[in-house]
């Protein structure tokens, strides 16, 4: 370290440390062995946790410019707005971002959390255990053991003094120190009760986003908050301090941090897939696998295999033997259901109008689904027959839902890819499980999707949202087709494959397809507004985008948008809910508010574990 880090002191190092999880930007290094350091910079006294893979050597002069990506994300505009074009050489994590860490029961892994429900880094210690790192951290940081989980150590900020009069709210029992929260608490405690309550609620909001010490370097959002607090205090001084206006300023229009580009990674290859399986063919690290797919998709020749896992045909943890059994059972079930309608006598069908209607709907759509693809072209096409049989059997599988227009669009790419009736049926059924609310009789599912889309748009791009509103297009109906068949009609087939498998990973958040929609709409903004398009023109313009969109560019931007939203200091629970981010208590009564801080921190940790990449290692 010393030889490539000028003015920086190495406080600790340990080799044989495997990177198990970090931002997906580092995916190429996951499961790679490397050396872990704690470093301190002489001039700023900033401390970092750094990890370098064994495979990479770092040159001394490039050190400072090699801002690691973790930092670039969390620091918003302060750091270089673009991650390095070249591959990242190592991880450098500002200790100020770490809010808690967890030591596994076997003492062989350590996980660092950001306090917002995200895992920053997760390491596995190949040689022995993490005791020495733990000891080093204890020496550098003041920590307290979580009340919920004795393996979790919450970092206590020493830059602010805990105000004793609020000590009944004893979050940090064994410490006189507290986080920035207490700074707020102190500022507000002498204010009129009413104001303090309101303000406290607002602080509650900020904790999740800015649970960070106020020591330098400050993330940009935190400066905003600090300024807001100054505003507030000024207001209090100059007036009676009870006016809601004084602190309402915290809720000004959301300004997102600048957009980072997230270039797509390499597709999951056959070799990588093989390496992900244990000796019996179980996928060991499901979340890692999904993350890889999120970043780079799946190699075309491998899709046939992996889609069966993505679409719940095979469980991820099934062994080779399990899969044989499962396949046998699925084949049997499929053919049983198929026989149920195939063997109906004409007079039975004649007197069974609900079934007859459903089957005729299938017939009408099958004959006009993707017939321009050679795979489905021509008379007496056997693939078309398979499509029809699958959809009719699906009617028996889920009679209440039956067949609804749009379903043949969802099946067509699956059948094309898998080229097997039974496989395609069950994968289609798995896909339908995810999207069946799109086909609700009362359109409730689609309405929810459209309104969620509007909420996200309004948060991330208020200008466009209000333009659409003024053009009676705030209902977002012009996106109906996108959402109903998940962009199937907007891209050529291989791009549809790509987009679908990314969305199925559920990374980096829930409802990622809504962010994809926004990424597409943003690009149309200047045309919408410049040409003063109204409801009709907008719908036509959007329908006509079909075949003109670049899937990789859209995915890059959608991912960038996700981080912008997540890092916004104005993030609302409404938005969090849609994206599946941990919620923040908006207003909590005085007496249990500190509990709610720990609750929240813990909920975030739990969430991080849910999102987390591991269940069992070795």
């Amino acid at each position, binding site marked *: 370290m010393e030889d490539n880090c000028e003015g920086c002191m190495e406080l600790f190092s340990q080799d044989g440390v495997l990177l198990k999880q970090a931002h997906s930007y580092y995916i190429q290094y996951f499961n790679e062995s490397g050396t872990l350091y704690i470093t301190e910079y002489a001039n700023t006294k900033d401390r970092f946790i750094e990890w370098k893979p064994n495979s990479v050597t770092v040159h001394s002069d490039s050190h400072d410019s090699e801002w690691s990506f973790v930092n670039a994300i969390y620091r918003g505009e302060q750091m270089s707005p673009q991650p390095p074009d070249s591959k990242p050489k190592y991880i450098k994590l500002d200790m100020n971002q770490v809010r808690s860490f967890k030591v596994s029961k076997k003492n062989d892994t350590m996980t660092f959390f950001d306090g917002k429900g995200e895992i920053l880094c997760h390491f596995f210690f190949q040689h022995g255990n993490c005791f020495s790192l733990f000891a080093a951290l204890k020496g550098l940081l003041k920590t307290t053991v979580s009340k919920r989980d004795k393996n979790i150590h919450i970092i206590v900020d020493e830059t602010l003094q805990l105000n004793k009069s609020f000590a009944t709210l004893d979050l940090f029992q064994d410490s006189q120190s507290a986080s920035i929260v207490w700074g707020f608490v102190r500022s507000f405690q002498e204010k009129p009760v009413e104001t303090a309550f309101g303000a406290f609620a607002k602080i509650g909001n900020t904790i999740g986003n800015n649970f960070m010490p106020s020591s330098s370097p400050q993330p940009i959002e935190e400066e905003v908050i600090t300024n807001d607090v100054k505003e507030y205090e000024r207001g209090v001084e100059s007036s009676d301090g009870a006016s809601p206006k004084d602190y309402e300023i915290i809720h000004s229009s959301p300004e997102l941090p600048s957009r980072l580009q997230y270039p797509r990674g390499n597709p999951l290859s056959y070799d990588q897939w093989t390496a992900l399986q244990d000796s019996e063919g179980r996928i060991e690290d499901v979340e890692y696998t999904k993350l890889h797919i999120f970043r780079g998709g799946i190699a075309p020749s491998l899709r046939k295999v992996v889609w069966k896992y993505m679409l719940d045909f095979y469980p991820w943890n099934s062994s080779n033997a399990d899969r044989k059994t499962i396949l046998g059972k699925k084949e049997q079930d499929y053919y049983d259901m198929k026989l149920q309608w195939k063997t109906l006598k004409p007079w039975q069908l004649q007197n069974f109008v609900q079934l007859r209607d459903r089957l005729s*709907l299938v017939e009408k759509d099958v004959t006009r689904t993707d*017939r321009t693809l050679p795979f489905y072209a021509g008379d007496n096409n056997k693939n078309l027959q398979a499509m029809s049989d699958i959809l009719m059997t699906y009617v028996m599988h889920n009679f209440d839902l039956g067949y609804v*227009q*749009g379903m043949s669009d969802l099946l067509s790419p699956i059948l094309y890819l898998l080229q097997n009736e039974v496989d395609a049926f069950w994968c289609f059924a798995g896909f339908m499980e995810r999207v069946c609310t799109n086909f609700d009789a009362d*359109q409730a599912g689609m309405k929810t999707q459209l309104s969620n889309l509007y909420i996200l748009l309004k948060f991330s791009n208020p200008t466009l949202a209000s333009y659409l509103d003024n053009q*009676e297009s705030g209902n977002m109906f012009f996106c*109906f087709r996108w959402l*109903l068949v998940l962009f199937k009609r907007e891209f050529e087939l291989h791009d549809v494959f790509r987009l679908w498998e990314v969305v199925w990973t559920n990374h980096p958040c829930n409802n990622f397809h809504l962010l994809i929609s926004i990424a597409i709409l943003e690009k149309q903004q200047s045309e919408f507004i410049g040409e003063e398009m109204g*409801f009709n*023109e907008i719908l036509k313009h959007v329908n006509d985008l079909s075949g003109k969109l670049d899937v990789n560019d859209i995915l890059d931007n959608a991912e960038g948008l996700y981080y912008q939203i997540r890092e916004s200091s104005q993030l609302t629970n409404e938005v969090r809910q849609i994206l599946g981010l941990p919620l923040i208590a908006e207003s909590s009564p005085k007496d249990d508010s500190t509990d709610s801080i720990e609750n929240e921190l813990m909920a975030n940790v739990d969430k991080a574990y849910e999102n987390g990449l591991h269940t069992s290692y070795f």
Partner: protein
Amino acid sequence: MENMATRTQTAQRPNGSAQGKICQFKLVLLGESAVGKSSLVLRFVKGQFHEYQESTIGAAFLTQTVCLDDTTVKFEIWDTAGQERYHSLAPMYYRGAQAAIVVYDITNQDTFGRAKTWVKELQRQASPNIVIALAGNKQDLANKRMVEFEEAQNYADENTLLFMETSAKTAMNVNDIFLAIAKKLPRNEQASGASASGQGRRLAEGDTGARAAGSCCK
């Protein structure tokens, strides 16, 4: 959505050429799935027919301009998804429409029943002066006919609907049914209605003449 009716009211503009008036009408296509709604529009607007026309998801919007005597009529056409499951979206599209074409497939009796239901719904819920045309499509398949011409004609007469049998495939009666609608639309009244609402739509200068030349202006 509430304002859509007023916003798309007919506009009347002298465009400085010999053509005189320009009228703009909103027309919606309704009818059971796969009867040929999209195909009729495609034939009318682009002169094309696709054997495997894909199903309509959500809705499509197209425009076509025709000339009628000294008037240029611009149709703003909404093509909808026909399946019953998407019925609840239909009012959004027929609200404020001055004309509707309700389509059935002459080879399928059920679709005729469904067409009658659409007519009833329009009579009850659409604009009171809406001009409704009934189209018995796929006339080229008359050898498989399940709905008799007279039956449909009688029904149309009882309900004062325009009626034609059409074929998107052979183009039979396609332009004719749109023209018949254009003739029946009260151009002057509509125009004054629009100015009353103060919401006449802007028409680009080049927009009218060029497209009109395509289909009906000889």
